[in-house]
């Protein structure tokens, strides 16, 4: 096996970061340039948003229910079972809703984008598009980025609500917490900064999912094997980035709002 020098590896990595930054920057800059592909955006919104709805509904519901189930025992020990609504609410809205939805959508759509664009690259369809005078960045990347950001925002809200609902079901039917009391405490504990944090994250995660998926797609080389590799890398990279950005965003916003 041929050995590659560390300098070459470093150069490759820096080049990859540079290419990714250019793609991410252009995907946003294209919003202010003509033509704007609204039809493609709508199509992608349907594929990403409506298509991801079943898994988001299922995961949101189960995560909320599991959160309630796991925390109820601890709260019961301290006689604070009435706080279960608050715990599920803050946990879902601030952290679990955005992150679980982000990871689910990353697994489904980042891979889909990488494989679709990767196949287009290896079959010269991207070159054909450029040859026909169409910018693939505008036609393929920007609609995917915008649609993912937009749809993930709403998918996260759905996930949060279903998580609360799942937690409510467990609290009411298994631990005999009053349904109205659960919702009252869940609602009252939420502060502006909790909601802001919970709704800012999907915007960042959506951007990561789409740009990473598109980047690995357009960088795919080496036929079908290369497309497979790009798909795997897209899911891994977007999931890791989501977790890292989540940590940084949480820390940053907590510092800004001098969190309790």
């Amino acid at each position, binding site marked *: 096996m041929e050995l590659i020098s560390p300098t070459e590896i470093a150069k490759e990595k820096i080049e990859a970061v540079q290419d990714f930054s250019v793609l991410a920057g252009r995907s946003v800059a294209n919003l202010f340039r003509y033509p704007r592909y609204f039809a493609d955006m709508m199509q992608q919104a349907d594929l990403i948003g409506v298509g991801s709805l079943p898994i988001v509904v299922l995961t949101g519901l189960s995560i909320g229910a599991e959160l309630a189930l796991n925390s109820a025992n601890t709260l019961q020990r301290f006689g604070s079972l009435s706080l279960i609504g608050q715990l599920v609410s803050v946990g879902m809205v601030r952290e679990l809703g955005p992150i679980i939805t982000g990871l689910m959508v990353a697994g489904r759509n980042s891979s889909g984008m990488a494989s679709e664009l990767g196949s*287009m690259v290896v*079959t*010269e*369809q991207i070159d*054909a598009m450029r*040859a*026909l*005078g*169409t*910018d693939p960045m505008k036609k393929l990347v920007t609609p995917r980025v915008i649609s993912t950001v937009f749809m993930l925002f709403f998918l996260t809200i759905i996930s949060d609500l279903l998580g609360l609902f799942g937690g409510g079901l467990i609290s009411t039917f298994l631990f005999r917490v009053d349904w109205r009391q659960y919702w009252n405490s869940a609602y009252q504990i939420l502060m502006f900064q909790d909601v802001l944090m919970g709704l800012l994250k999907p915007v960042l995660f959506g951007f990561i999912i789409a740009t990473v998926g598109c980047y690995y797609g357009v960088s795919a080389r080496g036929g079908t094997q290369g497309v497979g590799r790009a798909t795997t890398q897209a899911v891994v990279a977007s999931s890791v980035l989501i977790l890292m950005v989540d940590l940084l965003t949480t820390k940053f916003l907590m510092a800004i709002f001098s969190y309790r």
Partner: protein
Amino acid sequence: MAAPPITFDDRQTSTESSRSPVIAFDDVSIAFEGRTVLDGISFQLAKGETKAIFGVAGSGKSTILKLALGLMKPDSGHIHVLGEDVTQMREEDLFDLRRKIGMVFQESALFDSLTVRENVAFRLLEEGDVTEEEVEKPVRESLSFVELEKTVDMFPSELSGGMRRRVAIARAIITHPEILLYDSPTGGLDPVTSTTIVQLIVKQRDVYKTSSLLVTHRLQDAFTMAANYFDRKTNQMQPLPPGMRGEVPMGFLILRDGKIIFDGDVHELAACRDEYIREYIS
């Protein structure tokens, strides 16, 4: 017999226009992973001319087409296309220029999620505010040129290799581009389908006078193009009468080890004494 399309007047015009080439490569070099593929090549494509590019596999034939279209940038040298230096242009500016050029890719490169109609109409739909109804006529005309009107609602995966190649030609010519670039349009096809595609290229050359670069491995295709013309009356390709052989705007360019070893017409190729070229064309 119907008169050949190249009259004296046409030839005079062709000579005048040859002073302003539509494509000009000037000392162009490119290397991939340390291997020089094109080493300081220079050539010109005159207006209305079809130039066939030959060379062994990996000699940089397809790279020439991609360089001309600005899909790749050379390491050095300049490429002028329709008067613009594509080596100095930004990607955003190249899109306007590319709209004047049609390209037929080696493996057709049709958009597999779009129907034949959408593939052929792609450029028209992208160019402006036109409805699908408005593009129907040019799509039908373009598909009728390649005799594939019946495939309009089919997907590329439902077509044979030869049909896909013809749809790719229909997609390339729908806006009547000033230049056409063909990348191995007959590669891997049976002789009958190959002849159909050669006939389409000759028709494009003689009827629409489109300037073309044609990459091919099949020498016989280029000789057929040099020895035939397209007769509009019979709508068929016909052999040129004796004495008129090679009197069509058809050039030959042969690459070897990254350099051009021959650039001329069929007469010059036949008279060439270079051993490699003699062996290549024999």
